[in-house]
């Protein structure tokens, strides 16, 4: 007897069928998938261009199946700007970690956002440098231990962790800026909605869009994957609240 099967869950076309290089419990994989789903659902894969960062996700082009540029550390928004200005018909997105975007690439993200470049930024905030082995990032929480603050981050020496979304939302230029998390199914569903919305604003030619995704780094946090999700809930979210900071549809939300 023939068994009828219906596919109810598929790999997005924009996601390659490859083995991951990310550590167990790392949320890059979830974020990659959400970006790929948004690209597929908006039907823009064949006119999309990604810009890869330096960091663990330097290999994002091995997973997301669109044309890609690989930027110098922190400069993805500058590359995206140059590309998008010449090809406004293409959908240009950067995928950047917190060391890349909030430290070495601070000037590039600030000015791209303020110019209102019609690009989409996927900002992975896990509060640490992953690829180089767990050093302090501008987003590392107060007291958090890393290899370059082994006694815990001392804010009297290194300042307070930078809240990028809040800062970028202060600009008068229209933008869509939202912070999400991906450590529970509920949060993943919300994150997907935000990412799709961000890409859609670009498709419509509306504004600059950025989604900050609070992510885990069990390996460099020295925690198990389960402990890492708990850390997100108890430590990260209280300092980095999940909310939409700016939305052209709801200008009253602006800071």
């Amino acid at each position, binding site marked *: 007897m023939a068994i009828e099967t219906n596919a109810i869950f598929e790999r997005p076309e924009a996601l390659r069928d490859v083995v991951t290089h990310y550590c167990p419990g790392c949320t890059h994989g979830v974020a990659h998938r959400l970006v790929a789903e948004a690209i597929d659902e908006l039907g823009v894969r064949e006119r999309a261009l990604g810009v890869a960062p330096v960091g663990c996700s330097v290999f994002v082009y091995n997973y997301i199946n669109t044309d890609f540029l*690989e*930027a110098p550390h922190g400069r993805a928004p500058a590359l995206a700007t140059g590309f998008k200005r010449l090809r406004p018909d293409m959908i240009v997105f950067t995928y950047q970690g917190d060391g890349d975007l909030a430290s070495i690439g601070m000037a590039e993200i600030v000015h791209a956002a303020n110019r209102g470049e019609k690009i989409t930024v996927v900002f992975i905030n896990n509060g640490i440098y992953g690829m180089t082995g767990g050093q302090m990032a501008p987003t590392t929480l107060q007291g958090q231990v890393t290899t370059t603050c082994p006694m815990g981050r001392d804010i009297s020496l290194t300042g307070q962790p930078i809240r990028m979304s809040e800062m970028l939302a202060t600009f008068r230029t229209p933008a869509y800026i939202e912070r999400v998390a991906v450590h529970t199914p509920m949060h993943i569903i919300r994150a997907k909605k935000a990412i799709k919305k961000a890409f859609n604003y670009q498709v419509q030619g509306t504004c600059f869009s950025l989604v900050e995704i609070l992510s885990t780094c069990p390996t460099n946090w020295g925690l198990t994957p389960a402990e890492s999700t708990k850390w997100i809930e108890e430590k990260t979210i209280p300092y980095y609240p999940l909310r939409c900071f700016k939305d052209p549809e709801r200008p009253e939300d602006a800071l």
Partner: protein
Amino acid sequence: MAKILMKGNEAIAEAAIHAGGTNYFCYPITPQTEVAEYLARRMPEVGGVFLQGESELAVSNMLFGAASTGKRVFTTSSSPGISLMQEAISYMAGAQLPCVIVNIMRGGPGLGGILPAQSDYYQSTKGGGHGDYRLLVLAPSTIQEAVDLMMLAFHLADKYRNPVMMIGDGMIGQMMEPVEFPDHYEEPELPPNDWAADGAKGREARIIKSLFLDPIALEKNSHILHDKYDQMKKDEIRYELYKVSPEVNVLLIAYGTMARICQTAIDELEDEGIKVGLLRPITLFPFPEKQIYEEATKKNIKSVLTIEMSMAQMLDDVEKAIMGRKPVHFFGRTGGVVPSPEEIKEQVKKLTAPKRKKSTSKPKKKKA
């Protein structure tokens, strides 16, 4: 088209547009800011892209992104700004992206000064940023030549998929001279573009990158780059001879506007009965090594004098070319001080004056 009087910086800007270089990213810096000011008005007229970035670092990376579209892109800057651009230039060389970068050089190191200099020769011709790569480097000596080379630069960048740098000292940017633009710009055919990131429609996704973690793959990429540099050495060397003849005893080597000042000195020396010739490299990479060797080793040449607006940088390449076969001397002024024809004449006369015989000197051996 009739000749018009134009400032060098503006002529360079207009030349780019004539060659289809209608995508420009910039950051203000003296003495090249007029390029940006000119193009801020001109680019919208021709439907091009003009963008002032937040820093030279960002500008060079915007250029990187823009070059990935396969369209003609360029930037202009001056010495300290060019130093900041080295990051993206290295990446573009590694990723084989065409672009044109103009350096209207000022004195250094550091903030230096704002007056003309040629002290970025090493930076331009030996790579400039990190890694094993070269730029194709062009050095005009007149505003008309700056126009011609600017147009050529875009072609060469596309032909080799490599950044091309045109370097001029501050005078090239600031002088006004009559220039002529072609009515119809024609250039040789280029290979079809099969590398630009223009969307993965009906093909595999393209990845423009300079990262090769596998050492064998990285070495292979370096070989691909160096094969291109070897091809440039075969096909792209450009230079000019001035009053080089069998009667000449001293051969001057100078590039850019320095070469023009040498020409004045040569003309005046000729009136005094002293015959001097000039070899002016137009491409600094590839460098006219063989041509310099051939000219310098001719029997009539007693000595070679390299003249630069720097503390001797091109001198290294001249000495390398001549391989010790003839004495090579150097004269230079720097920091924005430009050698005068009088100073050059004085240097030449030191070389051509009959030498007194020292009593202790050994008798010269003659070859059989």
